């Protein structure tokens, strides 16, 4: 009688479906998972340690690099924590800009998620479709901050600058003739808001396209329905948030329940799943893209009709205008102090949570009154989700693990920090 025993399989860290650098040690009984042990930390950069050695404003850029597909949302969590401790007011126009860019970021994130998820499961086309739309949104990032990904656009007290009146244009090259350039620039003639409005008009049709490809697709449903089922009680126990929690049937959304920025002024719905499986989470995220589109539309409308400052005029925190510095001594001193030493936060602690595309992203900030954080703990949604991997994957086939990783929407920048 030969001895039958489980064998261990090493999945990743360089597996294309591991979404970065996940190393999974899987204990298998034949084709079935008995135990999944994720090994994380291969992308650990010590963000929390680095932040302690720098003045507050110099760490905003690190936040972009946490979850590197939803950059501005990370910044939002960080600046909210600082603003909470400082007790400063953010101008209403900046609130709306933040709301709009949070939703742009949500669409960016969900597009990358659906691209990666469907590619893992075997649908190549979705990847190309999703990146087509991402391009437009990254152009919006570029127009407002100069960078397509790591924007560093949100600042304590507002945003870095107001929305631009013109969009960057494509130029003629050896590979791109006049007619092609004209076609590409057609929707870039007006301001950023015009460009985004054009996008929001097109986008629901694009989501329909994705749904035509996937929602009733037999292979897609075979791979997702009933895979990685999480009951509502377990979802709470394991610390799931965002679409992972809503997929299990909780209508819990911080934008509605604990509103920040301008969300209390805006009309939108929270999609909720019923079965808690990967397919429900897919449906929730698809609907979230449509809702985000709705929110962006409302923000564009508001921003068109309301001008105003986009940064607090408290120059202990935000730099004064360049023109003022030329003749006002006070402004010059403020600028110098701000750029060298930074500002000191009052002693205390604050926990600021936002509804990040992946779940609850929060910054827990402890200040001892210095110009640098004493401790910054970043609560990343993906960390809690990945810790539930063992439970979600147990009893499933090896190929389902890939579907579960995809459905968790894991990005290692935030898990490892």
């Amino acid at each position: 009688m030969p001895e039958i025993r489980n064998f261990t399989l090493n999945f990743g860290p360089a597996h294309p479906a591991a979404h970065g650098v996940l190393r999974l040690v899987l204990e298998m009984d034949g084709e079935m998972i008995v135990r999944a042990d994720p090994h994380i930390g291969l992308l650990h950069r010590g963000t929390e340690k680095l932040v302690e050695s720098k003045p507050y404003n110099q760490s905003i850029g690190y936040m972009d690099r946490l979850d590197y597909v939803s950059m501005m949302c990370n910044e939002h969590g960080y600046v909210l924590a600082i603003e909470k401790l400082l007790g400063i007011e953010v101008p209403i126009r900046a609130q709306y800009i933040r709301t709009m860019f949070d939703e742009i970021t949500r669409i960016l994130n969900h597009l990358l998620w659906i691209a990666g998820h469907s590619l893992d499961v075997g649908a190549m086309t979705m990847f190309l479709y999703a990146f087509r739309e991402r391009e437009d949104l990254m152009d919006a990032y570029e127009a407002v901050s100069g960078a397509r990904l790591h924007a560093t656009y949100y600042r304590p007290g507002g945003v870095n600058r107001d929305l631009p009146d013109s969009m960057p244009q494509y130029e003629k090259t050896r590979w791109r003739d006049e007619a092609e350039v004209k076609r590409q620039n057609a929707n870039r003639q007006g301001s950023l808001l015009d460009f985004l409005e054009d996008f929001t008009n097109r986008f629901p049709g694009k989501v329909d396209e994705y749904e035509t490809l996937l929602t009733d697709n037999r292979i897609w449903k075979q791979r997702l329905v009933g895979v990685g089922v999480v009951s509502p009680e377990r979802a709470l126990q394991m610390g799931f948030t965002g679409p992972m929690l809503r997929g299990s049937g909780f209508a819990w959304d911080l934008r509605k329940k604990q509103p920040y920025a301008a969300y209390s002024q805006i009309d939108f719905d929270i999609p909720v799943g019923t079965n808690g499986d990967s397919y429900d989470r897919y449906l929730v995220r698809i609907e979230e893209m449509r809702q985000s589109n709705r929110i962006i539309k409302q923000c564009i409308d508001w921003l068109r009709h309301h001008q105003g400052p986009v940064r607090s005029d408290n120059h202990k925190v935000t730099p004064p205008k360049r023109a003022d510095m030329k003749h006002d001594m006070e402004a010059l001193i403020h600028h110098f102090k701000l750029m060298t030493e930074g500002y000191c936060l009052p002693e205390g602690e604050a926990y600021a949570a936002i509804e990040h595309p992946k779940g609850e992203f929060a910054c827990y900030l402890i200040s001892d009154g210095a110009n640098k954080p004493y401790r910054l703990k970043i609560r990343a949604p993906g960390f809690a989700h990945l810790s539930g991997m063992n439970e979600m994957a147990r009893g499933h086939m090896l190929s389902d693990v890939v579907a579960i990783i995809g459905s968790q929407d894991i990005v290692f920048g935030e898990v490892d920090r």
Partner: protein
Amino acid sequence: MSSKIEELQTYLNTHLEGKFTSSVLALGELTLEIPARSWLDVCNFLRHDEQTQFEQLSDLCGVDYIAYGKAEWDTHASSTGFSRAVQAPSVDPFDFDQAKIKDEPSEAVAGKRFAVVVHLLSIKRNRRIRLRTFCEDNAYPVVPSVVRIWNSANWYEREAFDLFGIMFNHHPDLRRILTDYGFIGHPLRKDFPLAGQVEMRYDPLQKRVIYEPVSIVTQPGVPRVIRQDQPSIASQERDN
């Protein structure tokens, strides 16, 4: 929102009397400070009581309070003027054989050094609360694990162990999580150098990856300053 928190505070004051040392309400957030011996009692109560029902543990983290309130640059004006710049700290080179011994806290600290901070969320009542407990022993910090109450604490406690060296009693699987396999030390402790202690490179002679003490010297950038003379920004905002 804030009145709901005040209600919670009075409720806890009556029902958990004597189990926590302080309850502070600041910036709309309630913080309970709990001695380690009643840590599990309080957690169990908050999780299961009908009025609190904190079903979810959002976050758990360690904090090292050894350098709290210490600045690198004295900004009090005196007759001799300000002190200048910051001296680079002298660091002994890392010694692999001594590593385990050096891991112990080098200086005696007044008061308790390590704390574990937990953030709870009640979805049913839409409330948050923060709990903090200090470890009794600075050299061997231990806290009872809350994994059985909230399963999500599992990885958070592993992380706190990895980064701070805080032990969690009855944790099912207390391993390192974020740092490298075979890592020495606890990187988020305040006495751990920013640049780390070892660096890794491929050695062509031995044909393998080797670890060596770090060769770079960290230059202090912006000095850490605590300003008491600066009027609070928040109060200034109110005056405007």
